């Protein structure tokens, strides 16, 4: 029987397109829906606490990149950091919320952009937690001896969905030209970028390596309707046959079913459900808060963090805030890409020391999913 192997992240990469865009210039890129400034913007920005973000568009709405090309760039950077090139890859696991195409999968598009030789691909389409679904595929493949070098990548090109022509002429805009809150909020929350990690059965050649101890994913979709989705309207989304794919693209567009939407009322219950999964892991001893030296949590908004801190303190499950690392405020919420962009910046920050444990948490409101990844810092093989 083949033994399971230890798996290490031997390189990370992040790709953020263009210059950082400040709050006052966001609508220059996203455009004005029906020529009106958004009434939602200021409130949403206060809620999410994001100062700057990146867009893969010019202010005229011309794309500078594709989702796939941004992922390919992040994979190349991660491979370089690990001392490898794309042709060395055995497996490419790629994740996104919405790829450039409807089909085939995102990994095929990223492989195409990499332009390298034959390899195994795996595509993961969900929302933020798709990143860790891809990571788990890469981790398991290396762990089981199916791959010697695997890359997990995740990317988002959200801004293109936020341009006026994705909303104008749909039921999401009222007679006065105002965009529905369930659509407008996300325009002020999500932005573009890609990230990647390369996994191998040995640590990086120099510096600190990161052993991937485990990756746990929990979906609660059996209990909740979709909370953040594209493809149906808010009112009809519980009925899968209401989806744009049944109505057809023109009717789907007119109903407002093509846009990315969020149900805020439901979000509160979904947040509690995520916290419940975390507390259950603490209770079962899977996670020891005192033993976590660094926490990288993809919370989509600053206020979410404030909401859960009190409960975590009361239940003895709080990881002290001094151990939290985030770059949400400067890099924006890049959905599935966020955790890799955060990990990449964290590793460059010089905070990590040998023997320390890093917990990554990626909650996804999509349909109530949450992923956890535990890492341990080890000395590189070259030392």
């Amino acid at each position, binding site marked *: 029987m083949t033994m399971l192997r230890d798996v290490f992240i031997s390189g990370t990469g992040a790709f953020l397109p263009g210059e950082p865009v400040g709050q006052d210039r966001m609508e220059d890129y996203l455009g004005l829906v029906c020529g009106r400034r958004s009434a939602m913007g200021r409130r949403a920005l206060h809620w999410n606490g994001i100062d700057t973000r990146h867009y893969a568009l010019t202010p005229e709405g011309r794309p500078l990149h594709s989702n796939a090309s941004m992922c390919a760039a992040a994979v190349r950077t991660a491979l370089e950091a690990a001392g490898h090139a794309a042709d060395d890859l055995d497996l490419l696991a790629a994740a996104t919320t919405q790829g450039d195409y409807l089909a085939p999968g995102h990994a095929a598009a990223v492989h195409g952009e990499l332009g390298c030789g034959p390899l195994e691909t795996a595509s993961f389409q969900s929302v933020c937690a798709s990143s860790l679904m891809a990571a788990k595929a890469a981790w398991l493949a290396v762990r089981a001896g199916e791959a010697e070098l695997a890359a997990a990548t995740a990317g988002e090109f959200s801004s293109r969905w936020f341009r006026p022509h994705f909303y104008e002429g749909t039921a999401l805009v009222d007679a006065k030209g105002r965009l529905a809150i369930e659509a407008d909020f996300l325009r002020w929350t999500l932005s573009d970028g890609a990230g990647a990690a390369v996994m191998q059965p040995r640590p990086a050649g120099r510096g600190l390596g990161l052993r991937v101890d485990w990756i746990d994913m929990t979906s609660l979709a059996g209990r909740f309707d979709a909370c953040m989705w594209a493809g149906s309207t808010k009112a009809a989304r519980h009925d899968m046959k209401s989806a744009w794919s049944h109505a057809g693209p023109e009717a789907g567009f007119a109903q407002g079913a093509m846009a990315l939407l969020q149900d805020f009322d439901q979000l509160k219950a979904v947040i*509690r459900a995520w916290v419940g999964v975390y507390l259950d892991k603490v209770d079962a001893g899977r996670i020891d808060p005192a033993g976590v030296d660094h926490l990288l949590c993809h919370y989509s908004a600053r206020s979410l963090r404030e909401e859960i801190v009190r409960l975590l303190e*009361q*239940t003895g499950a709080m990881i002290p805030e001094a151990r939290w690392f985030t770059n949400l405020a400067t890099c924006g919420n890049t959905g599935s890409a966020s955790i890799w962009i955060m990990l990449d910046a964290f590793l460059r920050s010089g905070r990590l020391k040998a023997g320390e444990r890093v917990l990554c948490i990626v909650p996804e409101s999509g349909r109530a999913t949450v992923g956890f990844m535990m890492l341990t810092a080890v000395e590189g093989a070259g030392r």
Partner: protein
Amino acid sequence: MSARTKEGGATTAPVLRKLAVAWTDFEARLDSTPLVRRLNRGLLTIDDYRALLMNLRQQVVDGACWISRAASNVDEAHFELRSTLMRHAATEHRDYRLIEADYVAAGGRLEDIRSGAKNVGSEALSAWMFAEASKPNPFGLLGAMFIIEGLGSIKAAGWGRAIARQLSLSDEAVRFLVYHGANDGDHMTEFEAMLAMVLPDPAVEARIVRCAEVTGRLYAMQIEDVR
């Protein structure tokens, strides 16, 4: 927030953690019952709402009774907890009248709701509460209170507002749900104080958590049975 709470209170933190897990499991079960699904999807009917009130009333009538019975079974060593439970029962024992008034404001007839019977889930929930409350020092019921009060402070007001909006009802018809949301605000602080009166004790802690789990399952069954 007290320093003890801030540090996650060595005495209460583990049980609060287990209770929070039980609560989120309960909430997810509740959200997937047919009635709450219809509410969350904006598809609730006036008949649904009246049926909910009709079913809640039969169980809420018993609420103050089992808390009183529990109080009467608390020994002298836990005198403060007995006082708290008695106050609690006094606050709640007229609640069912509010439900009746809501039912009438929602177009129902008083004699109908008063003559209503418990559904299968309510029967199980009520019988369970009285059985537990009849034991000496029935501290496990703190777990049941955690579940039911969590429902009041976290879900009730949102449900009440959504029901009024969906069914174009006046505030007069959703007072029980909205009032509970407004009044149960600081129940965690109060609840921690009650826990501190009976902990540390591993057997009591386990019983509190078990009671929360059973109560959550039976409560969800009650809502599942609303037709």
